[in-house]
């Protein structure tokens, strides 16, 4: 339980240590103060009020110290909670930002969201609300066991033996519930993911809800969540009953032992001192049992919390892209791939096979090929979205694995299909490309990206909020903001996925203008779609099934009459298409 917490807290771990030490100290002190009731009650029952009063002073002093101590424990517990909500969340964020892109599947993303929001919230509540009563509940009985030994050793022995028995029972019931708990958390995260999808894909889901199909998946996920929730309820009820029963059995044993002792005393003339000791021992027993019952009742909460901690640990355990110890800066705007092979997962087939390629600084390269031929993977490897399985990728003459993340990011600008916009204004989103950009620079980049007309239409201009993921703007508008963001960055290498960046005619024009302007100034690598782009390139690389099958100047490839020539043919066929079906057949 503590180990993942320590890992999660990282540098903040002294806060936890401080808290635990204080809580244990408080619990010991409470236990010691409780044991002073033995002489107080003893003297009182024996009729010695004066003696009782003297001992009582010690009790009162202990109480006062406990009180102040408790206040400090409480504060220390809140400090741990804050460290989790702030430090640990930041740590997860930093870690996740370094993970390879391949990790971000819908499932992992859903799980991550659950862990950061709900999970961390639950973990942060632990010290103040759970650990304090559990620590006091576990430590106080230890002190009382010692006192019981002093009063009547058989009772002390039973109490002592009861502790490991209870510990085993707690561990056992925790082990029992673990799998159910994990299943529940998985289903909970799945359902959460479906809910996000429900909101994001609402238009499609609604229109295709003819037979209830649109909400069916979400409803199924909610149903699974309910079923595994039910299983968890039965499971945890069982555990609770088991734990409580073990405590009760210990209590029963103590009562029976006390009864045996009492019956032994009954026969002869009553030994008053012994009877008083017995009564005090029974009182101690009840003080020993009660905290244990508390601990048992917290077992379920502890178990579900450790489920949350496991989920965090799993995320922190995913290997980040390694950063070099002595990073080298790129030397120029060149790109080179040496015998690169790439698979998205060890058990998946290669999407690139033994690709070697050199792109000179300042040149323009067009990547051409059918969908699935590996164009996107190749471009993403250059930007180190992930590392190649084999071979090496060099940017500016340096292996990307020997470069720091910031060096590489500074060298490359991307205009890709993922034109995700952050909540904030249009200007904020453009500024991501160059945090220090002046208002004039941002406006210039926006104009270059063809946003002039949009900005003129919006009353707030550049300060217009974009909504989550740019939900308030059209696809083309979002894309142009992403282009402006990439343009303002002013990097030596520009990677463009034209196929998806050019959503509509206007974007197409922007992309074409951008490419024309940057040509010769920057190293351009374009996943090409437009004939005009292809013809503009210094060099064309044709990919097929993850292999480079042709490369050269447009003219040379056209004359070779290979795949590139075929591609041109297809483009011409596409251009001839018309929506009105009657005419379409005519034209084809």
């Amino acid at each position, binding site marked *: 339980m503590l180990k993942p917490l320590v890992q999660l807290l990282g540098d903040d771990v002294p806060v936890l240590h401080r808290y635990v030490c204080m809580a244990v100290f408080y619990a010991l002190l409470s236990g010691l103060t*409780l044991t002073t009731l033995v002489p107080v009650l003893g003297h009182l029952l024996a009729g010695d009020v004066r003696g009782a009063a003297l001992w009582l002073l010690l009790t009162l002093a202990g109480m006062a110290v406990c009180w102040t101590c408790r206040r400090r424990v409480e504060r220390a517990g809140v400090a741990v909670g804050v460290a989790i909500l702030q430090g640990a969340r930041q740590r997860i964020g930093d870690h996740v930002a370094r993970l390879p892109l391949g990790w971000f599947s819908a499932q992992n993303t859903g799980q991550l969201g659950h862990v*950061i929001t709900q999970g961390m919230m639950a973990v942060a509540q632990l010290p103040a609300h759970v650990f304090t009563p559990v620590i006091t509940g576990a430590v106080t009985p230890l002190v009382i066991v010692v006192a019981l030994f002093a009063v009547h050793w058989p009772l002390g022995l039973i109490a002592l033996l009861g502790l490991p028995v209870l510990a085993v029972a707690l561990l056992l019931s925790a082990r029992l519930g673990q799998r159910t708990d994990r299943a529940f958390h998985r289903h909970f995260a799945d359902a959460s993911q479906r809910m996000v999808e429900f909101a994001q894909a609402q238009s499609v889901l609604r*229109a295709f809800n003819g037979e209830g199909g649109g909400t069916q998946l*979400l409803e199924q996920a909610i149903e699974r969540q309910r079923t595994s929730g039910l299983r968890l309820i039965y499971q945890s009820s069982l555990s609770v009953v088991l734990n409580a029963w073990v405590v009760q059995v210990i209590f029963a044993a103590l009562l029976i032992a006390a009864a045996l002792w009492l019956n032994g005393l009954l026969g002869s003339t009553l030994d008053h001192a012994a009877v008083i000791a017995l009564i005090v021992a029974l009182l101690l027993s009840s003080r020993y049992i*009660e905290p244990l019952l508390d601990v048992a009742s917290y077992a379920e909460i502890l178990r579900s919390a450790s489920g949350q901690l496991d989920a965090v640990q799993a995320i922190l355990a995913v290997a980040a892209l390694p950063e070099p110890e002595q990073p080298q800066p790129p030397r120029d705007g060149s790109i080179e791939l040496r015998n690169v092979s790439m698979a998205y997962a060890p058990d998946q087939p290669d999407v690139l096979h033994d690709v070697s390629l050199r792109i000179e600084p300042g040149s323009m390269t067009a990547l051409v090929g059918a969908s699935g031929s590996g164009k996107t993977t190749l471009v993403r490897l250059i930007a180190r979205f992930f590392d190649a399985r084999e071979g090496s990728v060099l940017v500016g003459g340096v292996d990307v694995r020997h470069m720091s993340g910031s060096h590489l990011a500074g060298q490359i600008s991307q205009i890709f299909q993922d034109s995700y916009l952050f909540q904030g204004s249009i200007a904020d989103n453009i500024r991501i490309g160059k945090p220090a950009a002046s208002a004039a620079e941002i406006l210039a980049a926006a104009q270059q990206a063809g946003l002039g007309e949009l900005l003129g239409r919006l009353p707030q201009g550049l300060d217009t909020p974009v909504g989550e993921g740019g939900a308030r703007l059209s696809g083309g508008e979002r894309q142009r903001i992403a282009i402006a963001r990439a343009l303002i960055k002013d990097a030596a290498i520009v990677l463009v996925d034209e196929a998806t960046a050019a959503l509509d005619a206007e974007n197409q024009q922007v992309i074409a203008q951008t490419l024309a302007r940057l040509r010769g100034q920057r190293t351009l690598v374009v996943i090409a779609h437009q004939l005009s782009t292809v013809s503009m390139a210094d060099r064309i690389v044709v990919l097929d099934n993850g292999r480079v099958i042709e490369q050269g100047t447009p003219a040379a490839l*056209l004359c070779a009459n290979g795949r590139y020539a075929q591609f041109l043919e297809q*483009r011409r066929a596409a251009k001839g298409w018309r929506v009105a079906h009657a005419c379409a057949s005519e034209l084809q």
Partner: protein
Amino acid sequence: MGTPHTAAAKPKMRGPVSQVLDPIRGRLLIAALLAGVGAMLTLVPLAGIAHVAGRVMGDNALTAHEVWWAVGAGVASLCAGMLLISAGELLAHLADNRITHHLRLAIVQRLSRVPLGWFTSRASGEVKQAIQDDINTLHSLTAHFYTTVGRAVGAIVLSLVYLFAMDWRMAIVSILPFPGFFLFFTRAMKASESNMQAFVEGMGRIDNAVVEFVNGIPVVKSFGAVGKAHASYREAVDAFARAFVGFTRPLVGSMANANAMIAPVAVLGGVLTFGTLFVALGWLAPLDVLPFALVTPGLCGPLLLLHYITHDLNNAVGAARRVQALLDTPVLEQPAAGMQQTPRGSEIRFEHVSYCYESAGRGLADINLVLKPGTTTAVVGCSGAGKSTLARLLLRFFDPTQGRITLGGVDLRQIETATLYRHIGFVLQEVRLIHASVHDNIALGRPSATRQQIEDAARTANIHARIVALPRGYDSVVGEDAQFSGGELQRVSIARAVLLDPPVLVLDEATAAADAESEVAIQDALSRFAAGRTLLVIAHRLDTVMHADQIIVLDNGTVFEQGSHTELLARKGLYARLWAQGDYQHSEEQAVPSC
């Protein structure tokens, strides 16, 4: 759980919590009762100890038999008590499981009928929070609150009765710490109340920040390797931590005092102090202190539990309020039962249709259009002219602010949603596949379709061969072992529409999103699919729609021009200008270099 309609119709007099809990109130009360009786039974052994001690110290008539009897009764009531408490907890949890499930489904049903604009103005994280997390927060209310109150009340009531029966003066002073606890406790609650709102808002913000952070990772990786780009996430985390500290700071001091006050040490110390004093004053026999020393500290446990649960209760009440508000969200008008009409034919008319977005800006004004069955209508215009709004109104993502749209002579608002979407299909620019198998994605609108029908649809959409090549074919899961390119996504979404086989098709001409090979495939698919249907095309490139039966030129939300390609060119208006700008005649020749 009633239908959302009846829930909405209920008077607003009652609090959101009682509205939300209505269906399971009976169970919760039974659960509370079980827990209360159980808690009382667990106190019996303590009274037993006091009783035996009194007998043994008082006279010598105590027999071994009597001792065993006391032990037996004590242990038996302890077990029975634990069983009852467990049964109560189980009952409450089952009720919770039931109500949260129903609430989630009710919200999902409700939200499937609100205008789509509701979703665009909200982050998806908010929607998730409402359906998942808010309802989860209710857990502490439904599953724990009632039983905890039952246990606490049971234990406290029985203890008080017992203690007062023993000695009323001693009883009063023994329980002094508990009013003290409540004093500190209410003070703490008051202090936190004012910060509650900020705290809940902070929760919402951090949820959005997480959704954004996770989805924006590609951007973060390309710009933010320096650590700046996930600044908004960092800020949200820090801001939330600040809100948390602000929320807890006024709480901590009072809470610590409250907790310290009813710690067993403090309670027992109080009992012994007053006990000694009363004995010294001669008000009490020494032995009579014993019941108080045994029973009073036992009150701490239930009270502490009560405190934890009330701490959560604030959150739960807030959540219940948000859940209830969500269930009351206005929905798109649905035809009353019996008022539903079936469209006669598939002619579409826009009659004086206007639409204003809440957030001002774009909209449509007084649109009049007729889409004759079997004809193709193209909508062109600059971006922002209202093309997408027009299409979305026809798909009833929103209702017009003024005027009406009819399908087969019937107002869209009089057509049942399911019927409407059997008549009108669409392929929009933004392709959304869901996290499910390819099969399920295509069968979205017709879950009952056979594999053969689905494969036929996929063939029509030119995507069958690609799907078969996937590791698990049609059973491959999108986003897992089915990774599609933009063009392929589009073809899957076409297959989805094909399977639905609607007489009217709304098409967002977005073929530019595809690569060369896909583009031919998509266009081929669309040509086949569109044949014989009423077609509304949102066009971005004029040359693709030049042969449409009618072309609508939108500008600034109004129909600027209308006619066929030749008519519009002859008019030398906006369309002619756009056509000239597009330079469509020459684009092909230019691009192809000579050998």
